[in-house]
């Protein structure tokens, strides 16, 4: 299991491949479910030029570790990876990577879905958008 909050940009597919090589036993998992969230250039009707992501250091990592452990208890998941950006982002930058590995796809999908939904509704991150007209805090996440 790996939880990381990172200031620098990351490439999610490289991260998944590197983690698989490092942490997973070849042949043990028949399924990997991966979610990647990427910054969009539009928010409602407004064009977004950039975004700043803040978090509550310490609480974030604690919360993400707890939900990863919960996912591994609730489903027969072999491993889980959560990587989340903070700092200054541009449209197209990956924001979050969530991956869950299991013997079969149903458990991998369920665990991955649980992790991203809990992260979006409970993990202490906040987005501040830079629009042409100025800056604004995002006040709520999209429902799905």
């Amino acid at each position: 299991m790996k939880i990381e909050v990172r200031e620098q940009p990351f490439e999610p597919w490289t991260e998944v491949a590197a983690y698989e090589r490092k942490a997973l036993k070849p042949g043990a998992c028949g399924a990997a479910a991966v979610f990647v969230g990427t910054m969009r250039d539009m928010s409602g009707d407004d064009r977004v030029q950039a975004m700043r992501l803040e978090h509550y250091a310490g609480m974030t990592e604690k919360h993400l570790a707890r939900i990863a452990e919960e996912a591994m208890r609730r489903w027969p998941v072999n491993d889980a990876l959560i990587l989340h950006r903070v700092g200054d982002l541009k449209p197209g930058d990956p924001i979050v990577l969530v991956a869950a590995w299991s013997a079969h796809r149903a458990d991998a999908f369920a665990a991955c879905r649980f992790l991203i939904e809990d992260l979006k509704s409970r993990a202490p991150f906040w987005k501040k958008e830079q629009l042409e007209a100025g800056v604004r805090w995002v006040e709520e996440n999209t429902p799905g």
Partner: protein
Amino acid sequence: MRVKVKFLASLAERFGRREVDVNAAAGVTAEQVWAQVTGGAAMPPNTLVAINKEYAGRGKSLADGDEVAFFPPVTGG
């Protein structure tokens, strides 16, 4: 007793500070500390509270050395 109060995201901007150490009465609740530190500002109804980096109700009592954080709804992912 001593309590560390943190404001995050838009609340840090609103109050112009991220962290303040305060002297508080024994048994004080999170929302009472909010009132003490903000000069009696109304807490926005959607404000979330964490004590020692765990979600908590705003009516929960604090202990000496606790860290209480106030923040708006989260928007990560």
